[in-house]
């Protein structure tokens, strides 16, 4: 092991011409960092590095006619690793594996104003304030689970959508048919299977595109179901003509404001309310 490690730089160095080798300090904390650093510094026949996680020193060899130490260190920093010439962008550092989040000594010295994060859009569920008022509505849990899928899709969050869809599957199973009105009961019998099918598929993938495909048919069935009865709170039936490559698609929302679940951030406010059910 040690021998191959020692040998490997020499073996491959043979291909780098006009070779210059220097030792530089590159921040890192574990052997996952080593892969990241060495991959960032590697360019076939031009440059390579051998980083040691104990000393945090990399031996960098490069063809001095075709690149420079500066250029290599810039690439290493863009991969998330602070070094003596460059500090990594915050998001590159944030993407590093957990063990590799070394302590950023240089970085901590400066007092950078961070752009305000955490401004979560599309989740301002103003409808929630009156959420608990009428629990007598037998389809309330169904709608709530549906809305949370919708909100997850507005945020293009496949994980959250899958989790919410799993709730919906449970909610569908828990619906007490006897509590439904006559007309709604008829619709329920028709759409129940399809609702379950779509909810199931949304819960099984984290691919937002796939989830949105199912969400459009899920929404159509939800609309039929809700329209057949009288929801305890107003339900807004909304439409985006651009969704599904111009075919258009609908969804239900608890609020009148448009937050488009089919494009998420791309076209957040595209759409209009076509009907209010209450």
């Amino acid at each position, binding site marked *: 092991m040690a021998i191959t490690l020692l040998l490997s730089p020499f073996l491959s160095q043979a291909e780098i011409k006009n070779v210059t080798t220097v030792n530089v300090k590159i921040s890192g904390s574990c052997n996952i960092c080593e892969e990241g650093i060495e991959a960032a510094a590697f360019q076939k026949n031009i440059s390579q590095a051998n980083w040691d996680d104990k000393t945090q020193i990399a031996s960098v060899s490069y063809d001095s006619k075709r690149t420079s130490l500066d250029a290599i260190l*810039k690439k290493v920093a863009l991969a998330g690793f602070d070094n*003596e*010439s*460059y*500090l*990594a*962008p*915050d998001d*590159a550092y944030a993407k590093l594996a957990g063990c590799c989040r070394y302590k950023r000594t*240089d*970085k901590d*010295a*400066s*007092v*950078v*104003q*961070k*752009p*305000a*994060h*955490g*401004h979560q*859009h599309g989740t301002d569920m103003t409808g929630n304030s009156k959420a608990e008022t009428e629990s007598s509505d037998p389809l309330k849990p169904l709608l709530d689970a549906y809305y949370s899928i919708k909100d997850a899709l507005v945020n*293009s969050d496949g994980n959250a959508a899958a989790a919410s869809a799993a709730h919906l599957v449970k909610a569908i199973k828990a619906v007490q048919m006897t509590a439904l009105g006559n007309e709604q009961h008829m619709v329920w019998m028709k759409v129940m299977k*399809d609702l379950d*099918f*779509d909810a199931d*598929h949304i819960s099984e*993938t984290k*691919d*937002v*595109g*796939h989830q949105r*495909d199912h969400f*459009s*048919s899920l929404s*159509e*069935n939800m609309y039929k179901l809700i329209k057949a009865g009288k929801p305890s709170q107003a339900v807004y039936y909304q*439409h985006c*003509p*651009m969704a*599904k*490559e*111009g*075919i*258009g*698609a*609908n969804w239900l929302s608890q609020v009148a404001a*448009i937050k488009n679940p089919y494009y*998420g*951030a*791309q*076209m*957040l*406010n*595209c*759409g*209009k*309310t*076509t009907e209010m059910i209450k």
Partner: protein
Amino acid sequence: MDFCKIPGIRAVYPVLILLFIAQTGFGQKIVRYDLYVKDTIVNFTGTDKRAIAVNGQIPMPTLTFTEGDTAEIYVHNQLNEETSLHWHGLFLPNKYDGVPNLTQMPIKPHTTHLYRFAIIQNGTHWYHSHTGLQEQIGMYGSMILNKKKEPDIPTVPIVLSEWTDMNPGNVHRLLHNASDWFAIKKGTTQSYSEAIKQGYFKTKLANEWKRMTAMDVSDVYYDKFLINGKNESQLSQFKPGDKVRLRISNGGASTYFWLKYAGGKMTVVANDGNDVEPVEVDRLLIAVSETYDVIVTIPAVIPGAPSVAYEFLVTAEDRTKSASLYLGEGVKQLASPLPKLKYFEGMKMMNGMMKMDGNLDDMGMKMSLNQMDMNVVMYPEITGPAQGKKIKQTGKKVEAAGTDGMKMAHGKQDGESSHAGHNMYNSNALSSIVTLNYAMLKSPDNTSLPKDAPVKELRFVLTGNMNRYVWSMDNKVVSETDKILIKKGEIVRMVLYNNSMMRHPMHLHGHDFRVLNGQGENAPLKNVIDIMPMETDTLEFAATESGDWFFHCHILYHMMSGMGRVFSYENSPANPEIPNPRLAQRKLFADDREFHLMAENDFATNGNDGQAMLQNTRWSIGTEWRLGYNDHHGYETETHIGRYFGKMQWLMPFIGFDWRYRKMGMDEVETNLFGQKSTKDKRSVFSAGVSYTLPMLLVGQAEVFTDGNVRFQLERMDIPVSKRLRMGLMVNTDKEYMAALRYIFTRNAGITAHYDSDMGFGIGLTLNY
């Protein structure tokens, strides 16, 4: 020095003014610059290339004046070609505006020309050559007009630009010949194999069905991007805690730049030389020829800690490359680079917007002021990384099988009524990244125009098509239109709608216009406005000058293709710089009337196969040939002279001449599908016909020959199979057919394998120009 260009009268003029100043006792200062324009050799990429330097430098020297000064700029043209200088964004007498053949005659080689005007405004401006494509190869520089009292803050003039090793004339020619070499260099071919791999096959099909070729946000591939002439540089004089004002001009010929700063937010304080209420942003896109003043802060450090330099990152809109300026000293904090564009997502969006007739459909979304940026679908930092679409496709199949009943519901749409309710879309609502748009610009002053002045309203549709690189307004180029007459004292209101597929930075000479952006009386003043596809913007300005003022797209290659108009004040005095207006006009029009040559020949084992074409905005003169190596294979040429019609230029009626010679067997006669006979042995006939571009970019051609024969043909060349592989197919009613595959090695060479019903199978080297 040769002052023969300057008539004696004008030499006296400054003296008179000087006397006047001396008398009135104002502190008016004459600031003189001498600019020596000279050929030079530069090396940005490892290869020596020709460029133009002024006073030995690229960019040209920064010219600094203070409001109230009189500028005296002597331009010494040491080139062997004509030149001119335009003072971008400046209010000045028309004859000093610097548009050759419009406001002055070109500055002849080895002569000197004087520009002399009073500085009556302040702000960040720039200057550049308005002659040919000189702006591309170095003729751009900052022009800083200071207020009498500038705020006390360190200031850095910055001019952004781009460099290509290719001769710009060649760039222009390639653009007009629909070469996809730039796309290959950028990795944006968007071929079928790439589409299939990424799960966008249907998107690509729909795209070609709507007669669109690969989409991109910019036309030209550049080798380097430059900040003040350098790809990377550092200003280490700044210390932690310092605030620095960057006075940025985009001197790029065709590149929009994203501006980002690693040390936090940027405060935008001025645009196009006019102050705006400070607005904090994370990034902004500076359109070609715009200027912005931004203030950045070098973050403070804990006392005793080493200082850090912060990257000011300038990335080309197509995100192929970037340039960096580091502010401060010490280890360099990098800004996060912009991730690659998701082109197929853009293509998908474009498909949704493009109607079959080539017009764009905004689906009822009233877009303006860059607020709704359709391109965000391609920005991974806003809309998430590109997703593996394979899963999605299999998912679709499942859906199709399982939810047949749903199709009905999709079928009955809510119809057109639903289009009306779209809100305007502010891309800043989509992520925590704040991107500047025009609606956020607010003038600190009341900019409203006189209420009682008459208003002249003009409407323009920006038009163009990428396939033939024709860019126009209302489908007319400069040479096809008259000047637009305006009257001094009136208010000119322009409503611009962009019905083309590219964005256009529209620039008005000599005036600032108000952009009606919802800020009421505080509408910002600009002289360039970027209009994205499908956007509508309304501008207004007070007509207070005289003479002829150019209004054009500032993408150099669009301008040279004729995308512009001339506003002409009624009853203006004759311009002494234009002694022969008819000659000047003809020379001005020559720019967009220019013909562009392309030629290619395949030296194949079974013969030579090639074509040559001369084309301009409307006309096409082309010859195709197939030359065998023996009489049995034959020799054949077809020449067509045609004129393109319509905005999309799909239709081209033509007249032609065919000649062929072939030795077939005794009395062997070929018949076409209609039973018409032709020996082909010796044929020389005239023809008339029409060709039309069909969906999937198939070119259909119907032709009648003087010998009574009729021929219909379907052809599609350059089907992008993979990044560098192109397929060509042809079939016609003479029972001729051809299929070819070409692999592109370099800009000028490729290998072609083809089968031809006349000449059989062949493989050969294709050279193209």
